[in-house]
């Protein structure tokens, strides 16, 4: 709670968030909650979309200061589209992640945001990269982030299996986000999911009343 109060004095609106990305057989799911709050006291938006498209089949999720995240993703988007024109082919997911990593690392003193990049490219198929607060870049099969993620480490460790089907993975992501939203007061609203495969991109929104419920609700 202290940290959120400090956030609002320094940076304004913070997302206070739960974000998740997971690879399944043939693609990747990336998703988040939809709440933006000021200092944990006031919900400034109930339906903000934290899953941002940086290229045709590359999306990223933001955790931390909303202003920083928007500024960085805007810069990354323009970088990537230029790169894509130069290369005359769609960018690799690792290229997108590296662009974000560079921006985070070079500006680590000023920035207060972490990123998760997920996408599909022809060379390596579905991938998930995470750029942590200081600018470290890691490739993982499944990753979670944001304030609500602490409550679902156990669930994700237990439930994630490599090579799930698309339906299983979407259900896994929805459950994980719903559980986190149930325990973290600065995460909430609806679940935004984006499913990325070779064939294309699909947005799935799970509104509050359709979220899975657990025993004590």
């Amino acid at each position, binding site marked *: 709670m*202290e*940290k959120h109060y*400090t956030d609002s004095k*320094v940076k304004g609106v913070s997302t206070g968030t739960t974000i998740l990305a997971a690879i399944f057989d043939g693609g990747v799911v990336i998703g988040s909650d939809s709440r933006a709050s000021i200092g944990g006291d006031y919900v400034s938006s109930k339906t903000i979309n934290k899953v941002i498209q940086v290229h045709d089949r590359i999306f990223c999720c933001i955790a931390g200061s909303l202003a920083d995240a928007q500024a960085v993703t805007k810069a990354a988007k323009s970088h990537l589209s230029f790169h894509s024109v130069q290369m005359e082919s769609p960018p690799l997911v690792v290229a997108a992640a590296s662009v974000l990593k560079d921006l985070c690392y070079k500006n680590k*003193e000023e920035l*207060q945001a972490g990123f998760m990049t997920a996408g599909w490219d022809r060379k390596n198929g579905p991938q998930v990269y995470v750029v942590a*607060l200081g600018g470290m870049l890691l490739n*993982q*099969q*499944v990753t979670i982030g944001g304030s609500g993620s*602490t*409550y*679902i*480490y*156990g*669930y*994700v*460790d*237990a*439930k*994630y*299996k*490599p090579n799930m089907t698309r339906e299983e993975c979407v259900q896994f992501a929805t*459950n*994980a986000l719903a*559980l*986190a939203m*149930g*325990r973290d007061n600065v995460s909430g609203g609806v679940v935004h999911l984006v499913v990325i495969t070779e064939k294309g991109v699909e947005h799935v929104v799970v509104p509050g009343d359709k979220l899975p419920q*657990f*025993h*004590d609700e």
Partner: protein
Amino acid sequence: MAAAASMMPIFGHQISSKIDLVPDWSREEVSTGTTIMAVEYDGGVVIGADSRTTTGAYIANRVTDKLTRIHDRIYCCRSGSAADTQAIAEVVSYQLGFHSVELDEPPLVETAANLFRASCYRYREELMAGILVAGWDRRKGGQLYCVPIGGMLVRQPVAVGGSGSTYIYGFMDSNYKPGLNKDQCLELTASALSLAMERDGSSGGVIRLASISEDGVERRVILGDQLPRFSTH
């Protein structure tokens, strides 16, 4: 410290005075860390804990027993400051033993929980203790009471506590259902503790479990190589 840091260049970069970029826990001395859990079932209660006591980065005791006997069929799971919880448990054991002799019958779990709450609430400014009180009595069967830091008292069918507990709220919410039997409770507790021990640096070692019912207390230990494992990625 912030002023000195901002005047000292390292590798040509100015160190930021924004120390809030670094989480609080990395600047503080952690006295203990723990994961404790308890689950009620029909006829009793299952309790479990990890076995690590830390002072800062050093593991002072890697085989700690955090499941402390308060009476024949009443145990408590301790989290927070080791010294504080040991002292409170001793006081409550004494008070409860005395009360039981006066009544000439086994004490109620609710009585034990209230004694914990009384001490924890009265001295809430000085203490750092989060306790789960669990046991069996003839009146209400298996019961679990939560006395977190601050001295609140609430009965819950399932509860987790300690620094490692944050990582397993999601797992607990999704896997617990009312109406589990004793073996399912033991499995749930062992899995949850194992997951928390994987993620929390201050929890680890072995898993100590106990089940308390009318027939008595059964204790068991799950050693490191036998801990439940989940697909690693």
